[in-house]
């Protein structure tokens, strides 16, 4: 990433509480440019909440979240959800929508939409209603739409958990390509195989706390905390 980008993202003691119950506590972490960070942990550990806080969909109730530019919520970021929400319009119009919000000129938008359709093999679906695509195609479109927004960092919240193996493979390949282009990846997954394939770094959350953050090879070779050891062992049992 070029200098002057929005990264690193610095989290300092970041927490989120609802009605006095802490759902995420005291997360201190730097997310540098150009890495693939996989966020792992059991259900209810706070993984999705962590992504939403980073992305700025909600604000922390304690601690801080700071982008390198100082902006509260920079534009150069995107998020792909477990179940993408596509607008009730065509495939092309779905890609165009956020470009319009970003204030791009009409010609620039048209060029970007065409480029995106071609790059992700969506050209023959251009005028199809997005809601009628299969689950795998919808998620592909959601990733293409995110890419068209020119993000420096892409958050993905279990993007393949509702997909079959072949659709999962396509999504993983797309994520890997984005990373190769320099887009920073922050992704949650329940799929340990997927985590091993994609992770450069692992953040392990447990009951709302970040209890391990290490390079992936070290994490998978031997987690330091008993919770993470049990989590990885659980995969072997199942």
């Amino acid at each position, binding site marked *: 990433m070029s200098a002057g980008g929005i990264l690193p993202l610095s989290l300092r003691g970041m927490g989120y509480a609802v009605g006095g119950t802490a759902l995420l506590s005291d997360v201190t972490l730097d997310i540098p440019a150009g890495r693939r960070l996989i966020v792992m942990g059991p259900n209810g550990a706070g993984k999705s909440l962590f992504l939403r806080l980073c992305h700025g*969909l909600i604000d922390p109730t304690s601690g801080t979240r700071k982008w390198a530019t100082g902006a509260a919520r920079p534009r150069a970021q995107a998020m792909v*959800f477990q179940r993408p*929400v596509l*607008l009730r319009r065509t495939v092309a119009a779905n890609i165009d*929508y*956020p470009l319009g*919000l970003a204030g791009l000129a009409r010609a620039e938008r048209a060029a970007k939409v065409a480029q995106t359709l071609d790059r992700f093999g969506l050209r023959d679906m251009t005028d199809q*209603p997005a*809601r009628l695509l299969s689950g795998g195609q919808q998620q592909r479109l959601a990733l293409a739409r995110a890419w068209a927004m020119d993000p420096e960092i892409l958050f993905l919240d279990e993007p393949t958990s509702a997909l079959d193996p072949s659709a999962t493979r396509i999504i993983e390949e797309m994520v890997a390509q984005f990373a190769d282009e320099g887009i920073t990846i922050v992704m949650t997954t329940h799929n340990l195989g997927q985590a091993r394939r994609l992770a450069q770094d692992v953040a392990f959350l447990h009951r709302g706390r970040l209890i391990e953050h290490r390079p992936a090879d070290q994490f998978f070779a031997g987690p330091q905390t008993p919770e993470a050891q049990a989590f990885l062992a659980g995969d072997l049992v199942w």
Partner: protein
Amino acid sequence: MDGPFATAITLIATADSALVQIIGLSLRVTLSAVVIACAVGLPLGAALALARFRGRGAVIVLFNALMGLPPVVAGLLVYLLLSRSGPLGSLALLFTPTAMIIAQTVLILPIVVSLTRSVVEDLWGEYREQLTSLGASRWRAVPTLLWDGRVSLLTGVLAGFGRASAEVGAVLIVGGNIAGHTRTMTTAITLETSRGNLGLAVALGLILMALTLSLNAVAWGAGQWAKGRLG
């Protein structure tokens, strides 16, 4: 032998000029009211769905209750407003088609507002995170939500049209049922029936029912088409 049905069929078949004039005025009044109610009610309902303010619940309850406002009461309110001694009396609108459009707008507006609020609120629940992520502010989301809810909203607009075209109380009070000027299908049916002129009444009744039937057919067809086409 000349039963009312035979007379009615003859009137319709020969496109009787009085009949055509009445139908034309009815459609003009009701369609104008629907257009105005949508122009105001769609944005208002969407704003009510997304806004958070004190007393929001009371406003929602009020609009829901107003959906059941008796047409005669709506007519009375508009009458008081427009009568010579009323606040808008100087406009001399009473017993004109404009007064009837105002009265019917008052009747339809709560339907459009309440339905829009409910549709947009549900949609916002589904779209909120995604639209925020894509960079849409809460207010920028309004046109997006209205457009994506267009099929459900159409049903509400047609319900409003149905209510307006079927009601008699409001247009009778503020229009006065003046022949050739403010006589609509419903007020004409009331009058002709009481005068024993059943042929014209039946003819208008048939046309009113045909109108309602075809509108509902269109609404249903549009819903089916959209389900297949838009998902």
